[in-house]
């Protein structure tokens, strides 16, 4: 898995490439831990995310909690498999997920 971060003012764009699951989710968590200070808009670009499991969702829920306090979080570009996970787990109810 690869994480590419682009900061533009107070907007942070995070592109996640590969699979976000039990082995790789802690890497994303580590990448984001120190990057959110002063960020008002966090955009996840999931156009190259192949799959997400509960481990990845846990990281997203935790980041969502932080962003609820300091701005907003948007998920873009999720493929059908990833969207299915969001829908089946009720994640669509608590996160802003823009459909393709």
């Amino acid at each position, binding site marked *: 898995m690869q994480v590419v971060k682009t900061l533009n003012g107070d907007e942070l764009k995070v592109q996640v490439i590969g699979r976000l699951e039990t082995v790789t989710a802690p890497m994303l968590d580590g990448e984001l831990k120190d990057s959110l200070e002063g960020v008002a808009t966090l955009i996840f670009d999931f156009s190259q995310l192949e799959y*997400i499991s509960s*481990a990845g969702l846990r990281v997203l829920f935790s980041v969502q909690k932080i962003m609820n306090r300091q701005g907003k979080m948007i998920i873009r570009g999720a493929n059908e498999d990833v969207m299915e996970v969001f829908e*089946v*787990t009720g994640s669509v*109810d608590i996160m802003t997920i823009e459909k393709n």
Partner: protein
Amino acid sequence: MNTEYGIEKRLRELNKDLHERYRNCVTVAGQILGRYENYFPDFTDHTLLHTLDILDLCNRLIGEQITLLTDDDLYVLMMGALFHDVGMGVSYSDFEEFGRVLKIPIPANDEERAWAVRDYHQELSGLYLKKYWRMFDLPNERYAHAVIQVCRGHRKTDLMDEAGYPVQYEVEQGKTVYLPYLAALLCLADELDISTDRNISFMYDVEKMPSARDRREFRKHMAIHGLELEPEKVVVRAWSMDQEIRDGVEEVCAKLKDKLLMCRRVAAQRSPFTISQEDVELIWEVGV
């Protein structure tokens, strides 16, 4: 409610990877179970709070036998506790798909659908996990099957069935879990979570519930205000002046005793473990 969950601590000590896999599912399961509340706001609590109660009760039923349980046993039990009611929160499309597998008659309206979901939810939970187990990072399909069987076993399933519940089920080469005992624990813990604590009264307006069956179910639960696990028996404390509710609580206790005896028999005959409680005592309190 006791928050010292020995089983979770024990899993963390024995196997950090399985513990992390479980922890990753807690928030997600909470989200899925929360959906059920949107579908069925008047039903008894089946959310994450109920799951925590169940873990606490399992912890107490296991007691000192915890040292005999392996990391795999604990993981399967805890995942079963987390997901056993997930069938209550399945989407409409999954309900239609699973309903065809289970041959559930097509409900004529929302109330019928709600009762169908409640009546079949252990099987719906099983089918949900069968379809989606990969997204919950279960290590392999055999672990998924073990968790499914524990979930299904919490209601209306024959835990003496050797084919469905082999005494030791292999989840990986050389690693087995005590499937009948784990399912019996969950089944009993679920039945034991009957007291008023399960339904925080201010969240529900019983009188406005549209269904008479719902109102009666709720009043029974609200009348039961204490449950204690003593070494040899389960003590239920209740109060009500209403004879219909008192009769209902008696029924609940009789059902609880049946479940207790069944689960004791499963543990005794199909595992090296025991369930020490052998009776249910109902104490009617005065002037509560």
